């Protein structure tokens, strides 16, 4: 019989392989030996963290991250049946994400949305070239915890500030966090416009969203 350490390694490796059947097989093997929460935290989540690192290093790519996330969800679903209600996986938070008006850059924002989703957030990606008002309206509609604002041009960067100002006008600023990103954005810019955080890349966006939403 495999040791606990070997099972944990197998779970993690299965996630890194991005193969759902391999993950389900590893979960089944670990089920009688480990607690469901331990399987998730020490095996599956640890594997997802490694996937994030490999993505950041350019060794794994976006479809692989999604396949790994899909496999992890399937594994967690199998385990949830054996978990007490209070321990079942909770939604981490609701995020509205988009590229501000006048800016048609899509890819960076889409990668951030995908990574946030694979980390367990409910993400509403409202696209690119999004009017300022639409961010606020969508946040109201889905009761968002955070708005993510992307801008890839110096000329469209002020759109991030305008969304924050509109949130203030609408009396929503206290309950909706704002994350800014995109090549011209910096921490100094985020401070200047009173955004809650600036993320340099998709992995940092996930880490900071967890800090802001889950930790709030």
């Amino acid at each position, binding site marked *: 019989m495999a040791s606990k350490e070997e099972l944990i390694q197998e779970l993690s490796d299965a996630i890194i392989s991005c193969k759902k059947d391999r993950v389900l097989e590893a979960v089944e093997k670990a089920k009688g030996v480990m607690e469901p929460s331990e399987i998730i935290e020490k095996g599956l989540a640890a594997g997802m963290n490694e996937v994030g690192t490999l993505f950041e290093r*350019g060794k794994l790519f976006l*479809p692989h991250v999604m396949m790994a996330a899909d496999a992890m969800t399937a594994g967690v679903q199998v385990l949830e049946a054996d978990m007490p209600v209070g321990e079942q996986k909770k939604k981490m938070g609701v995020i509205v994400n988009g590229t501000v008006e006048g800016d048609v850059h899509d*890819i960076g924002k889409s990668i951030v949305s995908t990574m946030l989703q694979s980390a367990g957030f409910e993400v509403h990606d409202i696209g690119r070239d999004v009017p300022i008002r639409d961010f606020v309206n969508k946040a109201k509609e889905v009761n968002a915890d955070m708005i993510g604002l992307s801008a890839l041009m*110096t*000329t469209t960067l002020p759109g991030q500030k305008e969304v924050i100002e509109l949130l203030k006008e609408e009396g929503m600023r206290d309950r909706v966090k704002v994350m800014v990103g995109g*090549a*011209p954005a910096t921490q100094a810019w985020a401070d200047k416009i009173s955004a809650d955080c600036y993320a340099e890349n998709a992995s940092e966006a996930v880490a900071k969203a967890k800090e802001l939403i889950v930790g709030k």
Partner: protein
Amino acid sequence: MATEYALRMGDGKRIFLSKEKILEELEAGSADAADLGEIPALNGNEIDKVAEILMMPGKTVSVEQGMEVPVTHDIGTLRIDGDQGNSGVGIPSSRLVGCMMHERAFGADTMELGHIDYSYKPVKPVISNECQAMEVCQQNMIVPLFYGAMPNMGLYYTPDGPFENPGDLMKAFKIQEAWDSMEHSAEHLTRDTIWIMQRLMASGSDGVNFDTIGAAGDGDFFGSLHAIEALRKEFPNIYIEAGMAGECVLGMHGELKYEGTTLAGLWPHQQAPLAAKAGASVFGPVCNTNTSKTSPWNLGRAVTFMKAAVKASTIPCHVDMGMGVGGIPMLETPPIDAVTRASKAMVEVAGVDGI
């Protein structure tokens, strides 16, 4: 107090650094590139040389005599007339005037004719206009004049094109559909680019500039390489510039290969041999500027990447230097102190063949 030198952050903000700090930042930037690209970091002499360039007292600097390289300008045709809140200067002038000013007043060694939409796909409905503009420019100009635009594969995805957006498909865990969408888009990108260039070549174009290859990820690179290959086959003497969009090919697909090499995650020194294999005449490597880091950090990093690309490339490397690339800060009009220092370092330390 140690002497401090006026430099910049990657977002253009003015900063003052001591020589020790400059050296430290250069080494850290170079180490970052070496780590990511698995390439050699700059050696002590090279770091000292870049530091010396950064600390030169003049507002602008230039290469040493005898080290001059060819320079060209993408979309320069529109920069005189254009005024969209970016680097255009808004002086009413035709594209012919824009091209000729670059040739006769600004010292461009080659030039490019481009359309305001600046992607291949939207050139299709205005092809006659573009052919006419090419003929008129060729009748008036001496330097080689290419046609240029961005492959911009994103225009083939919804809402701009016929194929569903792979980003949306992936978010719905429809991975196979996302792959299919990217592969179909790449085929269309290849087909459109060839069709457009067949007509522009018949109108006297000296070549083609693929500007910002890979902007939509590895599918964009894949489609562009196949277009280059087909154009080289059809026009053996065509001049093809393969300029990249960013330092690393984004793995939106992740599984696409060219000549057996997976395209996702390639760095400049790995991209260059593939561009040569496809049939490009010149490769345009890119290193992105990090707006949160200092200019020595960015320049140390950019020179390290470019030096490795030059070494690996079998064709000349004309480095992409401008707003937010090549160690230059991200500002609408990049500051001349930073542009000239970064350019000098690229020529004298990285050994690039052109800019």
